[in-house]
């Protein structure tokens, strides 16, 4: 896919809609009142009131029976007007599409994409002209030939006529769409070559949030641009600390799938999480023959890293990096020292730090406090409160700095207070270093590396099934935590000791209950015996404990640092963890992606790694795409009928066509212009530049007064465009569903179907009301 999924918020859309509709209603009513007064003088008030009353009366006395009758009439008229001729054209297109589309030499994934794109485009664009013409010409034509007069003389409200027209045309277009959809589905199944049919499926993706670490291991919003003009993807460098990090949410049992891996005798069923990638490769060197044949290598690391979440935001400035790095690496004593040094700098030479550094520091402290609070561990409360306190002190400092910057004042910022709060925090971190270290465990599970298969949608190389039970070689921290966890538990249960010695069954227990390899189990017990003899461990009350009262974690950490527990097994200390229990935290799963090849890069955008749930049938996504198309057609009907209530057919046609073309092709451009993302000057300024053969960098060759006038005029035009952009619907929303299906994805209901429904409903209600009012108060003459 070449676009990102934009999450849709129905509530904020509804709020904006109500505001806009409210404003437009007030303007309409106000304008009507003023016009009535202007036309009729004093009696205008009574006329206006009577009209409004009558309209509201119509509104609240609509008859379903009359609406049904008018709908049926519209249906028959549409058929009479040969709306169904479009089937003939569709049939002709499908018959001859084979000349253009089918190429058995082409790859299966390319074939599927081509056929699906053609089908959905043909359906949408064939019905579109019929719908535009029908909706724009129906009412004006009826007025011209006076057939509408026979309807309005009946007790049919004008509003009912409008609703009946819209409903009737909507039903016709939906019927045509359904028939075409069914024929199209049959056609595509029959037309696709045999080897491509298996690709006809709808993948169900769960997308996450993406951020990066640069080659220095520092957080970054984007990766590197390798020179691609299309900035959709950014890249991470290979064989470096650069990473792309995805955070998936709502990962739970429902995300787990059962997959068969391998073929023939080697096939086995695995229960796990299916990850699929669509990375792009970029090479600065050709690479070895192996890499040329196999492709660039990537590796996933599943990680649970509350330290990164808590302290990552502190690394936003060069001055803060030493503190952030120490805390992120779990070196809290070191971090405390660095923080004290920073506090000294703030106290003695505060101007060495930029305002952005102070802002970054305050922000980082706030985030750290919030994350520590979320963990809900009472042992962390003292240090969490100190983080909050330092953050609040920082806010006071920043307020003064911002006020000084804005007004040019020279009030003295409270550096000393802030420095004091930082020193207090440093003390708190030092005091609680062990608690922090133990409470913020980092767990990283590297998965086997794989070669990416670029641009091959759904290729097996791009799919990784992460087993539910992960067995991996633990790093030192993970090993210390693992062993301390076991020993704390078994110590309580008295399984560690037999009399005054370590239990002889401990080796067996480690192998059987903790899945430790035999060699490492023996090593561990040997080391423990040595420690017991040396007095580092003691046995009291039938329990094994650390002699100096340290926790088991600190004890094992110490042993590991002294290299007394180097694995006797060539595979390392293999331990087993559960994906959902140990790696997923509050439904969040963090996946880091690394590129392994030196001088090569991996490119990625947010949708390029996703959790793949069980696939749905192609027809499911196809149907949703058709629903989006149906909503688009009905919106055009609504717009066409509304406009045709007041103007003639040709004018209504051009108006609706303009709405559609702007909404379909230029809406995004319009929004980029209004948000300032599109480079260039305003309309009138650009016209002057073109006439003068100059460019925006050089500027116009006019006087300053003229320039100011032009700029002002452009501002006015921009205002008009802003209003226009609020009124013109974004028709590209309705095409998003088709884009998903073309790329073999299911259409996400919340992000594609709901916006389409919301846009349609958002236009339907005001357009019906407006059309009803316009038809009611106009003269039914074709002039």
């Amino acid at each position: 896919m070449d676009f990102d999924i934009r999450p849709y918020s129905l509530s904020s859309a509804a709020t904006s809609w109500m505001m806009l509709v409210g404003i437009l209603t007030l303007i309409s009513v106000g304008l009507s009142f003023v016009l009535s007064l202007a036309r009729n003088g004093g009696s205008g008030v009574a006329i206006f009131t009577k009209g409004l009353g009558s309209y509201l009366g119509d509104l609240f006395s609509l008859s379903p029976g009359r609406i049904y009758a008018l709908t049926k009439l519209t249906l028959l008229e549409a058929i009479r007007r040969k709306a169904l001729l479009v089937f003939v054209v569709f049939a002709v297109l499908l018959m001859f599409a084979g000349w253009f589309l089918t190429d058995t030499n082409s790859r299966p994934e390319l074939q599927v994409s081509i056929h699906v794109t053609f089908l959905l485009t043909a359906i949408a664009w064939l019905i579109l002209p019929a719908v535009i013409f029908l909706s724009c010409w129906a009412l004006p034509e009826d007025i011209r030939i006076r057939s509408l007069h026979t309807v309005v003389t009946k007790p049919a409200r004008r509003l009912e006529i409008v609703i009946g027209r819209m409903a009737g045309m909507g039903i016709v277009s939906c019927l045509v769409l359904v028939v075409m959809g069914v024929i199209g589905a049959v056609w595509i199944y029959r037309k696709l070559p045999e080897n491509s049919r298996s690709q006809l499926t709808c993948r169900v993706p769960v997308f996450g949030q993406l951020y990066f670490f640069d080659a220095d291991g520092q957080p970054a919003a984007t990766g590197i641009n390798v020179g691609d003009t299309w900035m959709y993807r950014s890249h991470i460098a290979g064989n470096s600390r650069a990473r792309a990090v995805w955070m998936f949410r709502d990962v739970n049992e429902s995300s787990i799938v059962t997959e068969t891996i391998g073929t023939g005798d080697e096939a086995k069923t695995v229960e796990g999480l299916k990850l699929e990638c669509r990375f792009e490769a970029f090479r600065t060197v050709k690479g070895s023959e192996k890499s040329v044949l196999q492709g660039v290598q990537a590796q996933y690391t599943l990680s649970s890293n509350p330290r990164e979440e808590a302290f990552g935001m502190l690394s936003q400035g060069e001055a803060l990096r030493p503190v952030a790095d120490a805390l992120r690496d779990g070196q809290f004593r070191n971090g405390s020292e660095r923080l004290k040094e920073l506090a000294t700098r703030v106290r003695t030479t505060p101007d060495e730090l930029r305002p952005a550094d102070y802002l970054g520091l305050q922000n980082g402290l706030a985030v750290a406090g919030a994350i520590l609070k979320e963990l809900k561990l009472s042992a962390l409360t003292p240090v969490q409160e100190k983080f909050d306190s330092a953050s609040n002190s920082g806010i006071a400092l920043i307020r003064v700095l911002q006020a000084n910057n804005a007004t040019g004042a020279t009030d003295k910022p409270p550096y000393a207070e802030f420095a004091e709060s930082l020193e207090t925090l440093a003390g708190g971190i030092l005091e609680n270093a062990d608690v922090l270290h133990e409470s913020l465990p980092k767990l990283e599970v590297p998965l086997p590396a794989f070669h990416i298969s670029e641009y091959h949608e759904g290729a097996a190389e791009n799919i990784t099934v992460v087993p539910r039970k992960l067995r991996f070689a633990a790093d030192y921290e993970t090993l210390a935590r693992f062993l301390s966890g076991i020993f704390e538990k078994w110590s309580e249960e008295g399984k560690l000791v037999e009399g005054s010695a370590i239990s002889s069954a401990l080796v067996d227990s480690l192998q059987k209950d903790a899945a430790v390899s035999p060699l490492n189990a023996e090593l561990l017990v040997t080391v423990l015996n040595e420690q017991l003899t040396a007095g580092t461990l003691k046995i009291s009350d039938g329990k094994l404990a650390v002699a100096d009262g340290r926790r088991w974690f600190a004890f094992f950490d110490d042993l590991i640092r002294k290299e007394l527990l180097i694995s006797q097994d060539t595979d390392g200390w293999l331990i087993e963890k559960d994906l959902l229990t140990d790696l997923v935290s509050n439904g969040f799963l963090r996946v880091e992606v690394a590129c392994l090849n030196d001088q090569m890069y991996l490119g990625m955008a947010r949708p390029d790694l996703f959790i793949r749930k069980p696939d749905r049938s192609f027809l499911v996504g196809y149907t949703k795409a058709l629903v989006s198309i149906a909503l688009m057609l009905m919106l055009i009907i609504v717009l066409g009928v509304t406009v045709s209530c007041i103007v003639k057919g040709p004018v209504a046609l051009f108006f609706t066509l303009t709405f559609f073309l702007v909404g379909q092709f230029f809406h995004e451009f319009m929004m980029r212009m209004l948000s300032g993302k599109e480079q260039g000057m305003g309309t009138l300024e650009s016209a002057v530049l073109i006439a003068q053969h100059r460019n925006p960098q050089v500027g116009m060759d006019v006087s300053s007064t003229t320039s100011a006038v032009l700029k002002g005029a452009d501002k006015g035009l921009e205002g008009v465009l802003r209003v226009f952009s609020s009124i013109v619907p974004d028709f590209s929303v309705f095409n998003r569903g088709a884009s998903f299906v073309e790329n073999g994805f299911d259409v996400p209901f919340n992000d594609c179907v709901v916006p389409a429904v919301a846009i349609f409903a958002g236009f339907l209600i005001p357009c019906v009301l407006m059309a009803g009012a316009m038809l009611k108060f106009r003269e039914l003459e074709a002039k």
Partner: protein
Amino acid sequence: MTNLNSRQRKMSYGIGIILLLGPIVYLGFPAEQNAADSSSGGLGKLAQMRQQYDLGEATLGKVDPSSSAMNLVLLGLRGPAASVLHLKAIEYQEKKQWAKLKTTVDSIILLQPHYVQIWKFQGWNLAYNVSREWDKVDDRFYWVKEGIKFLKLGTDRNQTIPILFHNVGEVISSKMGISDEKKFFRVFFTQDPDPKFEVSPGQRGPDPAINEEGKDSYLVAHDWFVKANEKDDNDDLIGVKGMTHVFFRQGPAKSLINYAEMRTKEGAFGEHIAAWEAGFKSWMEDYGREEFLGLDDKVYTLAPSEEELKQQAERNGITLMAQRKLWESNVKMVNFDFWRRYASAEMAPVTLTLHKTFFDAKQLYMQGKGFDRLDPASGMTVASEAQVKLEEAMQRWLEAKQEFSTMYEDSRYVDEALLIVQYWQAIHQQNARPIPDDYPLKSLWVENSGKHLETEREFQRETRGRKLQ
């Protein structure tokens, strides 16, 4: 106003229609084809003229009904439609939407089947730019093939355009022979990685769409260049649009030379001399004897005898000195003499021996036979097989230089000699022995100190994956 009544007017209209039918039929009737000599005759003067001057759709190439249908349906908006499609193609390529790019390109050529630049550009685009975007080499090869097939289709639609035929040969020749992936592409050209071209279990065949007979890429390119030259011969035009004629015509000879060169590099010494002889013959006798038009449309050939030179001077109405000057400048332009001398040198047995010896030495080195051996008879350490072979290669080089002194000053041979020395020095280093003060190619090594880094890089590249003892 006439005095004719209604019936008389109708009769006169009828007679007028019948009279007009004569010239209409004479002009517009379809031409009758003569199956024997493909000439046309009978009625239908316009159709005959169309055929005579190659103006008819069918005379340009194979007619594609879908192309005609598309043009009809667009109701004259072919130009804007093609422009929109071009913009779309650029967008799809930028956004890596390959399926849509391919269909858009196919649609463009349906609308403009006789616009040669489209075929040339998009064929090149697919084979070079699009293939480069993919990472794995078999995917790159797929898109190179797509480019070649696209150009081939262009030749079907435009059979009177020689440059398109030449382009097909050029893409095959360059992509398979010179590109970074040439090592893989040359294999894939005869053994396609796509499983659907498997001829038997474990045995892959070529893609018949680009290599029907399973030949080497240079030989397939040669066939296309020959076709291009034939089309050039048949078009009654002197010169070819889109390329300097003298470069255009060298395609077949050059591809045979390239073929011979590549086979030498690949160690196919059994066919070395025959291949070079074929290349030499084609260069001298086919290409060298062709007539070209130089400046001011003066005729010249590239390999004339003295007598022929005089005749050409007479024909052109210029002095012999002027003719010689014309000849010399064009010989220099196409580097005719270099390729003649090069092929001539390569054809010689002494050169074959040199190349084979060096190739064998490299093989020995790669197999790990560059380490000193223990002679069981004497119990002494003796030089490795690779070192012995390399020293032999040095001698062969010097012998060959004696015979072709001018040619062996060319960088091709100098680089080869430097590489021999590089290998030889590497063997000394790996055996922890100092480089001797004197050795056969020492002076050459010293004279070309500026090339040492490049030679070392080449050595590193060639010896990746070397077996250790």
